């Protein structure tokens, strides 16, 4: 039930004094309540959405930093990835 999905904020408005907005979940759009993140977000930002409420702004800096650590641990780099794609294309 505590499911939260990251979505991109498309637009922000107020409905009878309540901060609301439209978010995009990879193509599916929905109106959600932005009251709990209103002072931190702007259109284009990502927020975690739970039962129609944005509960946090996704911290892009932190996300990028941890992903770098994980990528290094798994020794993945772009060249390696390109080679994999090429190999697959050749049916290796």
């Amino acid at each position, binding site marked *: 039930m505590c499911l939260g999905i990251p979505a991109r904020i498309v637009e922000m408005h107020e409905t009878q004094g309540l901060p609301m907005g439209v978010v995009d979940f990879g193509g599916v759009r929905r109106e959600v309540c932005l009251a709990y993140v209103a002072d931190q977000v702007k259109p284009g930002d990502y927020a975690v959405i739970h039962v129609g409420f944005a509960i946090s702004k*996704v911290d892009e800096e932190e*996300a990028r930093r941890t992903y770098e650590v994980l990528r290094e641990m798994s020794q993945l780099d772009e060249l390696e990835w390109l080679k994999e794609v090429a190999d697959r294309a050749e049916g290796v």
Partner: protein
Amino acid sequence: MKYLTEYRDGRVARALIEEIRGTATRPWVLMEVCGGQTHTIVKQGLDELIGGAVEMIHGPGCPVCVTPLEQIDKALALAARPDVIFTSFGDMLRVPGSECDLFQIRARGGAVRVVYSPLDALDLARKHPDKQVVFFAVGFETTAPANAMAVWRAQQLGVTNFTVLVSHVTVPPAMTAILDSPDNRVQGFLAAGHVCTIMGWTEYEPISAKYRVPIVVTGFEPIDILEGMLMTVRQLEEGRHDVENQYVRSVKRDGNQPAQELVSRVFHLVDRKWRGIGEIPGSGLALREEFAEFDAERRFAVEGIHTEESPACHAGEVLRGLLKPFECPAFGKECTPEHPLGAPMVSSEGACAAYYNYGRFRATAPSDV
């Protein structure tokens, strides 16, 4: 999707699994608190992949599973009233009450509607002024701000035909209850990332210090969970017991302050019964006196509830991590997701349903570290 698919990369997962297996010098017993994490772990078979290094015990963090039977029975009684439109999150509809479930009430003509957001329930009340709209306000700290907002808005907008049937629970007292139990085996926790998105993690610091258990705030994707496991195992191997944060892209130490403020304005802490577990002191939220007019239990007399659990159901032992779902004699026989005897077989986040849906009918032999 951004911030989702990259946390499902198989190559990163494999590297993390190797790292966990290389770090653990003995098997460690960890508990993931949240049912959403249980779902990911069982679906992806993460517990099998790290078998031998880490044993995962599935925690009680599934609101559908722990909502007490009395509250389910009250929901059924309210939903059966001709003047009521009963609204709920979808996963509560098949939770068995003493006699039936909300789906059956709907089949008998009760107005039961699934809503995505509690604000949708409030909108429904405004559109149907001739009806009483009741919303089943269940959930953990993650959901409490949404439910608090619906009540707050109802008061602000003067909506008089909207009430909530509250059955809110909070995580830290349940973790303490697990650690206090004489048969506890948990050595480290993956704390629930979205609960901590709201609450932050300061409440967990006294728990980790008192019980000397590492607690790592963890997200929900496979990579998040594996990284949370690795961070916990590292602490255990180093003899540390700190609160750490894996889910840095969403969780800050102090959580979401505006959300906490509205929750404490609308709700206050009470003792709450957990289905299958029993009463846990200070583990629930109830409406404050200023919002009593929005309390469905006060507006409608819901009395004369006599609860009756299925005697064949071992949900309590599963929820406390004492039994694996397949060790219950009813699992997959009398009890299936189509005909659940207990709540953990209903919700996709319940351990029993996760084991059933992903074909876990027996233990898998742990592989060597």
